[in-house]
């Protein structure tokens, strides 16, 4: 099984994902300014849409509008006051705990199902495998707004499918209740991304050299042993990528609760997730400085966790 080292592992967008030619300086590529003709345009827009707002938000987060008897007195430098306030803000913690809970429960379920589906479709034991591959992947094409509207209607207690279910079983389950609405959101997100993750894993499985399976067969390995010794290690890298994207998605949760908010009555609060709260602070509470501090903290938290996951993941890789 030493040839396992050849099994490509994915890709992490990170320090390790540098093309091979970076290591030995390949050939003699002349070093001059011509490269900027190609890279320049991207860098200009990257600065406008990425670096500039980041810097502006950092600056904003250190200021606070001064009001004297309701009259604006301009902005005043307040140092880390916005950040101190944020860490004492129960609304912020409530949102952070909620998305962490979401991450711990929804992400493993989703990735587990995706892994199962990728292995099943790759196994060659399904009738109509390509039909399953396409149909499971299809929800990825659906915008979050449409996905949430559809599921929201299905959840509906008056005319939705849930109404029919409740009628049939004599129950009165309300999927919009404070207790269940996070589960309802989790179901929508799972539905949207099972197929996408499945396809990433499936693509990784497809890069396993056929000779590896032949060797395993000669060794008399059964199907489970092939899955455990060849297939699961091969998708390990892809799993790390999917995990990082899922972590980002969970911490930045916004679209689904935003669309669902009105349909669900008042169980989705203005601080339901950190992003929701940032949106509320900037547009409804009219406190862009505080909102900027929140956006910066959430960005840092997400990057830090993604980085730790990537480090731990690559440490375990052969």
């Amino acid at each position, binding site marked *: 099984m030493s040839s396992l080292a050849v099994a490509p592992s994915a890709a992490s967008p990170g320090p390790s994902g540098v*093309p091979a030619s970076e290591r030995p300086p390949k050939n003699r590529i002349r070093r001059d300014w011509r490269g*900027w003709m190609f890279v320049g345009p991207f860098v200009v827009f990257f600065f406008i*849409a990425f670096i500039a*707002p*980041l810097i502006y938000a950092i600056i904003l987060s250190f200021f606070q509008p001064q009001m004297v008897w309701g009259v604006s007195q301009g902005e005043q430098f307040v140092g880390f006051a916005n950040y101190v306030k944020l860490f004492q803000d129960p609304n912020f913690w409530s949102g952070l705990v909620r998305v962490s809970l979401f991450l711990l429960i929804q992400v493993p379920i989703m990735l587990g199902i995706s892994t199962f589906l990728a292995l099943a479709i790759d196994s*060659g034991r399904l009738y109509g495998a390509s039909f399953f591959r396409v149909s499971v992947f299809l929800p990825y094409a659906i*915008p979050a707004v449409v996905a949430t509207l559809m599921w929201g209607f299905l959840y509906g207690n008056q005319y939705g499918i849930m109404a029919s279910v409740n009628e049939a079983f004599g129950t009165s389950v309300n999927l919009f209740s404070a207790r269940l609405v996070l589960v309802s959101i989790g179901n929508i997100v799972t539905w949207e991304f099972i197929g996408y993750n499945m396809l990433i894993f499936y693509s990784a499985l497809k*890069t396993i050299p056929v000779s590896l399976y032949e060797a395993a067969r000669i060794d008399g390995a059964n199907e489970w042993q092939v899955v455990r010794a060849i297939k699961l290690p091969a998708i390990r890298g892809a799993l790390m990528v999917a995990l990082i994207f899922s972590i980002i998605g969970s911490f930045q949760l916004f679209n689904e609760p935003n669309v669902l908010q009105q349909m669900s009555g008042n169980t989705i609060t203005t601080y339901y997730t950190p992003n929701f709260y940032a949106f509320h602070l900037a547009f409804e509470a009219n406190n862009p400085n505080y909102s900027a501090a929140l*956006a910066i903290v959430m960005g840092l938290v997400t990057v830090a966790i993604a980085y730790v996951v990537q480090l731990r993941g690559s440490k375990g890789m052969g």
Partner: protein
Amino acid sequence: MSNVTLRPALTRPASAETATKRKNPLSRKSLILTIVTAIFAIYALMPLVWLLINATKTQHDYVSTFGFAFGHSFALFDNIADTFAYRDGIFARWFLNTIMYVVIGAGGATLLAILGGYGLAKFRFPGRKAVMAVIMGAIAVPSTALTVPLFLLFSKIGITNTPLAVILPCLVTPFGFYLMWVFADQAVPTELLEAARVDGCREFGIFFRISLPLLAPGIVTVALFAIVATWNNYFLPLIMLTSEKWKPLTTGLNDIKLQTYSPAGGQEPLQNVILTGSLLTIIPLVIAFLILQRYWQAGLAAGSVKE
């Protein structure tokens, strides 16, 4: 170390099924495994089937008949007419806006990623290491975390509520840039470029006539990622745009729901317009997916094969 596998994975996207058969000629089909997988396929397709059925119903049939059964009358074409008639045809405007955002935003993003990725892979220039480090770091920064700061900046310079506010952020995809870099590094032989330079070709001439055709599979992947992201974009237009006339389909659809639905009054939303509008919103992308799905898989393999 595993870059060798990149090219084959890209050049034979359609051979997936044959490879499966070849590697295990003794494998028998399993009915149980098929049934379990079918349950997930039904889960994936169920809401879409529901949408298709209910877009054909009148408001009355919607509230009085079972969700997965057709109504008494087939009202799909009336519903489509209603959708386009809603508030003086604003839906058509939103549709065109979405297409504009996709063409300019996703098209521009793809173009910038191709040029940038190619430039980074095939040239050594001053500041190259810095560009590399900053953009690699940017991949892990979620775009939604930047949306509120972007709004604050754009409102400062006065371009919120214009198409520019939606297009500018769409133009920058660090992930697409990364994919093109990796791809160009593999797909375009440096020797070929050197030979063309010796023959006296100009850099842009080399790029268009030699490199671009070699980059085609990677371009399809990056373009598809960008198109889906732009077509489905919601948070950015929601924040940037207040004027109806610049909205894309996604925020527009949510507006119809907001305007016609008041839970307090116990009133149901204007379901036929919302559902038919949703159906019309997803049809172009679903068709594109069904046609292009094999390229997706190939492109994803390229993205995941890197080490």
